[in-house]
């Protein structure tokens, strides 16, 4: 099964545009990434620019509204993720525990949904979703 380990760095919600982690933090994280790769569990990973460089689209009243970042009311934002392939949630958690996280950092471990997890009627409706996913690559 696939899990996404989502990194949530506290304070990142207010980080200035262009903020990047320092060399020392990157070095420690690279060692961790390497360990994931050497163990054959890492499928993909990415880091995200801070919300101050992004935007939010909300749909209140059935109408899309755009708000540019940073977002004053938001307490937790995603800083990056790892996609891993493991046998159980416990294994994903054990990998998350090995991350050289800082005092301000939290990793949320979430299982990726597979089509087989849905009942047949939802599978049928979701069939299109995979086509869209494939065509966007």
């Amino acid at each position, binding site marked *: 099964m696939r899990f996404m380990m989502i990194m949530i760095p506290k304070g990142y919600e207010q980080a200035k545009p262009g903020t990047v982690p320092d060399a020392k933090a990157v070095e420690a994280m690279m060692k961790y990434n390497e360990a994931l*790769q*050497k*163990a*054959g*569990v890492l*499928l*993909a990973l990415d880091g995200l620019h801070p919300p101050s460089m992004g935007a939010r689209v909300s749909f209140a009243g059935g109408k899309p509204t755009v708000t540019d970042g940073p977002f004053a009311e938001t307490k937790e934002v995603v800083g990056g993720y790892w*996609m891993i*392939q*493991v*046998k*159980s949630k*416990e*294994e994903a*958690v*054990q*990998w998350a525990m090995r991350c050289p996280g800082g005092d301000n950092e939290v990793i949320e471990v979430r299982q990726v949904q*597979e*089509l*087989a997890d849905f009942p*047949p009627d939802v*599978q049928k409706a979701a*069939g299109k979703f*995979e*086509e869209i*996913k*494939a*065509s966007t*690559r």
Partner: protein
Amino acid sequence: MAPSDIHRSIEAVWRIESARLIAALARRVRDVGRAEELAQDALVAALEQWPQTGIPNNPGAWLMATAKHRAIDQLRHRSLTERKHQQIGYELERQQAAFDLESDLDDDIGDDLLRLMFTACHPVLAPETRVALTLRLLGGLSTEEIARAFLVPEPTMAQRIVRAKRTLSQAQVPFEIPQGEQLSGRLASVLQVIYLVFNEGYAATAGEDWARPALCEDALRLGRILAELAPNEPEVHGLVALMEIQASRLRARTDTAGNPVLLLDQNRARWDQLLVHRGLAALERAARLNGARPPAFARFAIAPGPYVLQAEIAACHARALTAAETDWQRIAALYAALAVLTPSPIIELNRAVAVGMATGPAAGLEIVDQLVAESSLRDYHLLPTVRANLLEKLGRYQEALTELERAAGLTTNVREQQLLRGRIDEIVGQLTSRGG
């Protein structure tokens, strides 16, 4: 934490740490069987203690320290009972030194893991035994899991593993990475074992499942590990590419009722694009190592090996957005190259399919008909299956039906039988509606 939860967490720790633990122990005690037993002892200790104490901060180091104490205790005990003080005393000192020199698992143990892989896949063992031992020592699978995966009773599998460890010990197989001329043959054995695991998952040879994806995942994990241990071997990346691309189709290979769907009929939108992407990247890595350069420099390139060629074939399908866009000419040429490298009637059969698509069914049938006489394919269900397909395209329906009946009688996989029966009904239906 509830007892079952901590149990699952310990299993997870074992899956992450066991191969490294066994590899590090094997270098110190110079016996893979003994190393595995010491690691198992450490696991038993963890299962006893961790539910009370909680999982330690560095579980790998805890397991290593426990295994080390156990190893030294055993040697002390032997020196008392066997009265060979001097010899065992020396051995004790040597091992203690070996343990003390590098007492934790943090150092780079890549070479130990590679040694462990070569040892588990040693030619002194039968191929099926290599598979079991590799899953056990490097995949972190329990004997029960391996037995279930290969539909063998657990005691049989346990015996197979015990005998394998004894064979390695008696043959005094050194814990080393083969050098020079030996290397390519031994590496081929490792690749073969990993691909055997994958194939048993991908095309279950018996039973009711069309595939057992967990085995594919185990094989992929082993392949990805090997790719980091031996990054300069193009064939390793070729195998990984082949497995990634084939695995990308796993969920498209069955419909919602669990019936098999053949490659050309699959909904390509269901192919896992992340795995396709990884597969193509691995293939590029192999190509770079093989020295693939612009055509002007082609004479410097090393000829690709069998796994790279097979991955190239898989990539031809992966790159085609629709079945109709498949580059069958290239696939036929790749099979021809593969046939030169590893001549086999099965490759020839696949070439016949590709030629049938690229040039026409008559050209394909010509190749297949030469294979009919081949005794090694007499009981191989795909020969009559392929022949039936070509005959059908040529409008020779009665002959096609005979071949499909034969194929259905030859396969032991229930799902595959259903697929063949379905095709028979289809052709019969067409013939009836046409009034002939």
